[in-house]
């Protein structure tokens, strides 16, 4: 594509940023429907207990209460991809989130008061809160709905992968390092709490849901299965979403519960979580224990990696259990490695269950891997930048797992951050002895062109141009704040030669928009972008031939600019709106409309998890400088240098926002964020005790996009959304270890952990 780009690559603010910035955007929290009731959910008091009885009679008597439901009142199916999760629990409670009853009332206050009047008789049991304990023979079966596919009753999911000759490579290794890494529970903490408004029309038996799901078509299907109704009778409308980051990939029990309350009452019902409820009952990043053994030969080439992962699945299975799909990619294919043996399992416990979270297991994997690479370099006496450059991935490489790197900016990313951060000459001391400085490197690999985990990874687009020359893009894809609709509008403006303000993007209604698998795997710009470009191609064919006919020229090759079609040969021009009017209103009366379904070239992986799962792959490297206060244990992140292979920068302003936002989530993961649990209960369900970073914690972020122009991507672009947070915690951990000359095996690296590590180091010296 030699044409000069006019719109693509420009720093254009998000299309509806003005609406959001003026308080006029309608979020789920803002919806009020006529006759609407307010729903509230009663959760178990004990993470593990027999439920002997639930008495709702007093609640029902409270004036203003319209409906109370328990499992006995509904006929529904379990949810979750393993169908191991009842919407309302009966007979037993298995985790602190468990929904026992739900109320619909005239006001929020009455609904809350009614919950207090519900009497539940519990017989408290001793729960299992440790995954290793759950694997013991003596442990009880935690989830009663599984079929027993695996050798142990508490295994929810298992993944096994391997390539190369492990034993051979072990023998060949000069040094071998083994470590166990422990990764915490982190939560999305979207600024808008979870919410849904359900409106069931009992005349035509149709269910309307205002939902913040990020996968509306899968959601429609899952909801229908749960409620035992027809998917096509469900219409999902997405109001403006106040943060997603993966949390809205699963359908959660409160959503069908809200639908049930509406179906029972025949009135709209709204459920909005309180912040405390959000901390307790919304998903988390999977906690896991990673045992990693890795080797290196005498020249510094990586020889093998052996990985065993135990993930705490919690009481029910969510998409979180499938994160090893992504985790194994990093272990098998980030840097060249001859052999890999990967085992992961998700184990049921009475803890809260995970979900999907931006990065999908990859921050955990990258932390373990990049830490061990530092240790291998130390053993070998090689510098940490050099060992990474030596083993970096390359263009044209087909990895042991079968990923095809048609483009690959890995080395360039590393070189860039090494140079920009002055890696070899960074300061090692702070203003005095009390402060120590360190620098750390880490890379990452992530899918950059969708991920074929569902039968289709496709996206549909319908495109129309109206008689006034305005364009409407009806896309299957969704906007969850990341700016995808702006990028789509920019593509249409570029290709059709019309101003951005003449482009509308319709993407919020399942009754209207064509199918799409949903927002995940950093796929939207790539997949929805390609889908749109396909539709534009088709529509242009129609417009071109009409224009040629109108201009009475043979050649139907037109440029689109200034709202006009301009003949490539003769230079004759005709207004776009005029062409459309002539199409519509003169014979043979045709619409200026086109539809296209794009399916990426990626393949389903085989049973051994081998195959080219994504249309393309994204790479990044970060170099991070920290200063550690050895008196308080406080880690201050000073500068973050990040280079990312984005294929092509579509919009630097939005891209920068994705990078900075992702990185700050990574800094939180590294240093402060952890949902603390004790015996199945969450100890810090509020912003006061769950430490999210504030503006004051923002380090200087230096971003260098690397453009590799992937031939599969729209204008050469790759997915970007998840990558920035993936290597951040790893690089910070490496920097802290570099500063202090010790090891960190756990996240988050809190001041207490730093002080303890310093203390242990001192004791060892003595």
């Amino acid at each position: 594509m030699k044409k000069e780009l006019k719109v693509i690559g420009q720093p254009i603010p998000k299309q509806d940023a003005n609406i959001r910035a003026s308080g006029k955007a309608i979020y789920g929290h803002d919806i009020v429907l006529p006759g609407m009731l307010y729903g509230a959910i009663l959760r178990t008091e004990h993470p593990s207990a027999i439920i002997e009885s639930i008495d709702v009679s007093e609640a029902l008597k409270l004036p203003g209460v319209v409906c109370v439901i328990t499992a006995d009142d509904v006929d529904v199916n379990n949810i979750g991809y393993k169908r191991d999760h009842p919407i309302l629990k009966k007979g037993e409670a298995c985790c602190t989130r468990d929904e026992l009853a739900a109320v619909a009332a005239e006001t929020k206050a009455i609904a809350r008061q009614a919950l207090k009047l519900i009497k539940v008789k519990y017989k408290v049991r001793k729960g299992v809160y440790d995954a290793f304990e759950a694997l013991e023979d003596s442990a009880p079966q935690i989830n009663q709905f599984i079929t027993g596919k695996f050798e142990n009753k508490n295994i929810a999911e298992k993944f096994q992968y391997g390539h190369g000759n492990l034993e051979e490579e072990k023998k060949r290794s000069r040094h071998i390092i083994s470590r166990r890494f422990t990764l915490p529970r982190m939560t999305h903490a979207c600024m808008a709490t979870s919410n849904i408004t359900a409106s069931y029309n009992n005349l035509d038996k149709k269910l309307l849901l205002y939902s913040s799901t990020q996968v509306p078509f899968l959601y429609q299907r899952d909801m229908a299965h749960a409620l035992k109704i027809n998917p096509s009778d469900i219409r999902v409308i997405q109001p403006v979403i106040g943060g997603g980051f993966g949390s809205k990939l699963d359908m959660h029990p409160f959503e069908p519960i809200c639908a049930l309350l509406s179906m029972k009452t025949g009135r709209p019902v709204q459920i909005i979580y309180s912040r405390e409820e959000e901390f307790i009952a919304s998903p988390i990043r999977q906690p896991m224990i990673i045992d990693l053994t890795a080797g290196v030969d005498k020249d510094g080439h990586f020889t093998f990696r052996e990985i065993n992962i135990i993930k705490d699945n919690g009481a029910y299975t969510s998409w979180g259990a499938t994160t090893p799909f992504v985790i194994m990619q990093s272990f098998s294919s980030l840097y060249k490695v001859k052999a890999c043996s990967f085992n992961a399992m998700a184990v049921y416990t009475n803890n809260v269950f995970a979900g999907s979270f931006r990065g999908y297991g990859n921050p955990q994997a990258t932390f373990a891997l990049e830490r061990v690479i530092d240790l291998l370099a130390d053993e070998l006496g090689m510098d940490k930048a050099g060992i990474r450059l030596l083993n970096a991935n390359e263009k044209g490489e087909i990895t042991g797992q079968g990923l095809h790197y048609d483009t690959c900016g890995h080395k360039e990313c590393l070189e860039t951050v090494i140079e920009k951060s002055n890696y070899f000459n960074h300061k090692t001391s702070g203003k005095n002895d009390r402060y120590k400085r360190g620098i750390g490197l880490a890379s990452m690999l992530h899918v950059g062109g969708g991920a074929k985990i569902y039968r289709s990874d496709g996206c549909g687009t319908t495109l129309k141009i109206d008689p006034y020359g305005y364009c409407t893009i009806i896309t299957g894809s969704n906007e969850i704040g990341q700016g995808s609709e702006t990028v789509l509008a920019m593509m249409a403006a570029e290709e059709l030669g019309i101003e951005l303000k003449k482009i509308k993007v319709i993407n919020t209604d399942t009754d209207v928009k064509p199918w799409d698998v949903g927002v995940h795997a950093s796929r939207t710009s790539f997949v929805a972008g390609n889908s749109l470009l396909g539709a534009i191609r088709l529509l242009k064919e129609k417009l071109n031939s009409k224009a040629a006919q109108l201009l009475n020229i043979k050649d139907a090759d037109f440029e689109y600019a200034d709202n006009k079609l301009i003949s490539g040969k003769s230079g004759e021009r005709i207004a776009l709106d005029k062409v459309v009017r002539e199409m519509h209103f003169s014979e043979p009366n045709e619409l200026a409309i086109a539809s296209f379904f794009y399916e990426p070239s990626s393949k389903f992986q085989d049973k051994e998890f081998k195959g080219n799962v994504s249309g393309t792959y994204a790479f990044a490297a970060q170099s991070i400088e920290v200063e550690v206060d050895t008196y308080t244990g406080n880690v201050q992140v000073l500068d973050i240098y990040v280079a990312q292979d984005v294929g092509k920068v579509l919009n630097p302003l939005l891209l920068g926002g994705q990078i900075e936002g992702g990185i700050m989530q990574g800094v939180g993961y590294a240093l402060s964020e952890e949902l603390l649990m004790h015996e199945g209960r969450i100890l810090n369900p509020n912003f006061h005790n769950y430490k999210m970073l504030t503006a004051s914690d923002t380090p200087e972020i230096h971003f260098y996009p690397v453009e590799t122009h992937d031939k599969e991507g729209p204008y050469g672009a790759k997915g970007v959304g998840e990558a920035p947070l993936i290597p951040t915690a790893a690089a910070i951990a490496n920097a802290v270890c570099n500063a202090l000359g010790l090891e960190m095996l756990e996240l988050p690296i809190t001041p207490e952990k730093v002080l303890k590590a310093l203390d242990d180091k001192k004791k060892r010296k003595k």
Partner: protein
Amino acid sequence: MKKNSIKKETLHEVTFTLNGKKVTCKIKGATVLLDLIRDVFDLKGTKSGCNEGECGACTVLVNGAPVNSCLYLAINANGKQIETIEGLIGHDGTLHPVQDSLVQSGAVQCGFCTSGMAMAIKSMVDLYETGQHVPGDIRTELPSRDEIKKYLEGNLCRCTGYVKIIDAAEKLFAKEDCR
């Protein structure tokens, strides 16, 4: 059955200025300003992110100073000037410079924190414009990036990593008319 009988609470009359217009209403003693604004005056631009005074999404200005409206008893608004995000925008739909700077800087992602951020930044700008610098003494120079960060500490944002929000505030101060 005494639990179930909702007793009639006494209502209090409050009069205050809401986005430049004088309003009067009758409220319960425990009503917080956030609920009054959102539910009674139907101004949905002010958001609730926590209802516990921790996130700043509900920030409004009371006599020019930023407060968490989720903790502010509405009864205390009596006789005061209350400004919400809806009050920033001009009658002809032009954005206030604070809003415009946030938009142009790419500081708006999901936007749920934006109303609160905008109000906090506006209060900081106003303090400078009226010579009441934050923090401390009369000065002529612009606030530093660190001072801006400190001022915005009470407003959480999960999407942007704050960088572009801080940029937006910095650009605003750098503009001539803000000094």
